[in-house]
């Protein structure tokens, strides 16, 4: 175990995150008690809220809507400043005016997932039945539940068919969920750096993260909210371990090598001598300021449970039988978390039902995170695919 994470005083940021969760700076759809969401775990959830951001204008026949599904620790601020961290939107490279996903042409919807902590209902939300935060009383949810909650939002917006559903990593799992459960409502789909089921290795990494959170005495069995505690160390370590899986050996080596951090000699201590240690500690501590530990447990669990083939008699192709959706599957060469092989499984299943599918593997050393970073070939692929689909859909420039 490393030395404890440095507690940089970030009370302000944490308070800001908590305040945003309870009263988000964006639109919120609240589904009343009378329209509960039936969860895959058989429980009913109501009421619940979905916090979301939109960009651009919905056209008259509501045919230009693109749903963006975010990954594990992202949120609805895909193309605008994050109200807690002050950082730019997490996918501004791809989403914005004149960008491949062009907010001048399309109506972009990005909801915070169910179980999240940026305004949608999750374990940190107040349970109206008790008046206290849910904590571990929040039901265990699935990727399918997240998708079904998004369906309520799309219904609310009066959109019959989304022009596109786009997402990377866990966002890609939601894309696949949409294309399976609600295929008639998806004209085109871009599942990126994702898989149709979570691998044993990925479940293993998630379990390490969850155990780190639960081993933190401040976690208090999930009831830390009203004690004024935050399991910072546990969640920080979880983030550090996870962050390694988002990169690649080559990317780490290129960025840090064995370089020392602000010193010329080893200190013969457990300080962060190496740049890579310092970097990871920073990743851990800034993450804790904006993310809820219980949300992390629930969302990673939802990913672990994801297995689209198992939902369809162990035949992945059955998940897509009858699909009319146009697909563009994208993977990255150095992504070892969701390797190309797993994208190929998706492509194979789509071929088996003769779906319209494009499949591109992008050459990159940046690992899983490549989909969030500067990758011109990836951006060109998304743009080309979206434009050709828009042309077919009759969406003029």
């Amino acid at each position, binding site marked *: 175990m490393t030395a404890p994470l440095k507690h940089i005083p970030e009370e302000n940021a944490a308070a800001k995150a908590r305040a945003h969760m309870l009263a988000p700076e964006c639109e919120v759809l609240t589904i009343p008690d009378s329209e509960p969401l039936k969860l895959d775990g058989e429980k009913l959830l109501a009421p619940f809220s979905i916090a979301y951001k939109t960009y651009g204008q919905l056209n008259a026949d509501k045919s230009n809507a693109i749903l963006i599904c975010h990954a594990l620790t992202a949120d609805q601020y895909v193309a605008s400043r994050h109200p807690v961290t002050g950082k730019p939107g997490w996918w501004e490279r791809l989403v914005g005016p004149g960008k491949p996903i062009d907010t001048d042409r399309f109506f972009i919807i990005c909801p915070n997932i169910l179980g999240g902590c940026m305004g949608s209902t999750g374990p940190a939300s107040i349970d109206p039945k008790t008046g206290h935060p849910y904590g571990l009383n929040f039901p265990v949810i699935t990727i399918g539940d997240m998708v079904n909650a998004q369906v309520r939002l799309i219904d609310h917006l009066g959109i019959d068919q989304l022009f596109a559903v786009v997402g990377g990593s866990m966002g890609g799992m939601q894309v696949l969920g949409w294309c399976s459960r609600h295929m008639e409502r998806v004209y085109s789909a871009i599942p990126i750096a994702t898989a149709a089921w979570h691998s044993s290795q990925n479940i293993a990494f998630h379990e390490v993260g969850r155990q780190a959170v639960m081993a933190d005495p401040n976690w208090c069995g999930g009831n830390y909210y009203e004690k004024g505690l935050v399991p910072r160390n546990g969640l920080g370590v979880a983030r550090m371990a996870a962050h390694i899986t988002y990169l690649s050996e080559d990317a780490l080596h290129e960025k840090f090598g064995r370089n020392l951090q602000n010193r010329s000699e080893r200190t013969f201590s457990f300080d962060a001598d190496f740049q890579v240690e310092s970097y990871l500690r920073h990743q851990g501590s800034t993450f804790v300021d904006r993310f809820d530990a219980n949300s992390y447990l629930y969302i990673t669990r939802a990913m672990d449970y994801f297995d689209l083939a198992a939902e369809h008699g162990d035949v992945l192709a059955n998940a897509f039988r009858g699909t009319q959706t146009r697909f*563009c599957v994208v993977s990255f060469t150095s992504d070892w978390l969701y390797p190309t092989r797993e994208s190929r499984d998706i492509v194979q299943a789509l071929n088996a039902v003769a779906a*319209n599918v*494009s*499949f*591109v*593997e992008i050459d990159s050393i940046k690992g899983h995170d490549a989909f969030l970073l500067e990758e011109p070939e990836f951006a060109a692929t998304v*743009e*080309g*695919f979206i434009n050709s689909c828009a042309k077919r859909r009759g969406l003029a420039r």
Partner: protein
Amino acid sequence: MSSAHADYEPTHRVDHLLIAEMVTPGSRVLDVGCGDGALLHLLTETKDVDARGVELARDKVNACVTRGLSVIQGDADIDLDDYPDQAFDYAVLSLTIQATQYPKAVLENLVRIGRHAIVSFPNFGHWRIRTDLLLYGRMPRTRNLPEPWYLSPDAHLCTIRDFYDLCETIDADVEEAVAFNSAGRRLPIKRSLSLQNLLGEKAVFRLKKAQPAR
């Protein structure tokens, strides 16, 4: 995409033009070994077909998708097994079969996946190849077979006559067969296999899986 798309004006290959003639407008086409997507583009623009491609070279795949064509990275020798029977109206293999590892299996898949298969290939029975080999005793190098034997991707070359034999072996009926001379003109000698095989530089075959006798 728009700029890339607009600038893209390929010189159409004669076999592509003939394939486009063979294809019914509005049909579903799979182009196996689609390369830079020239045929897909031609078919989409002139025949309004639902055209898909499979290509081995990643850079070519990415360029195709960037131009808005539906293409997957895949290997004709491996990935055709995934497709269901008769998923397409036409399964096309243009100047690719000679570069596959298992041409027979690929051709069997082609007539299975497509209600029709269209195959074009360089004819190794062309008189120039025959004379080159006869006179110089070396592997011929021509416009269609430019590389020396040790660099050539073309592992399985055949003649028009050989191809007829393969069709028969796999129970495929030849619906149409056209040979082109070195000037790219269609040979007006459809009936004489020997002349086609001697004068044809390339050939295009349209095939169909033979129906079992009732």
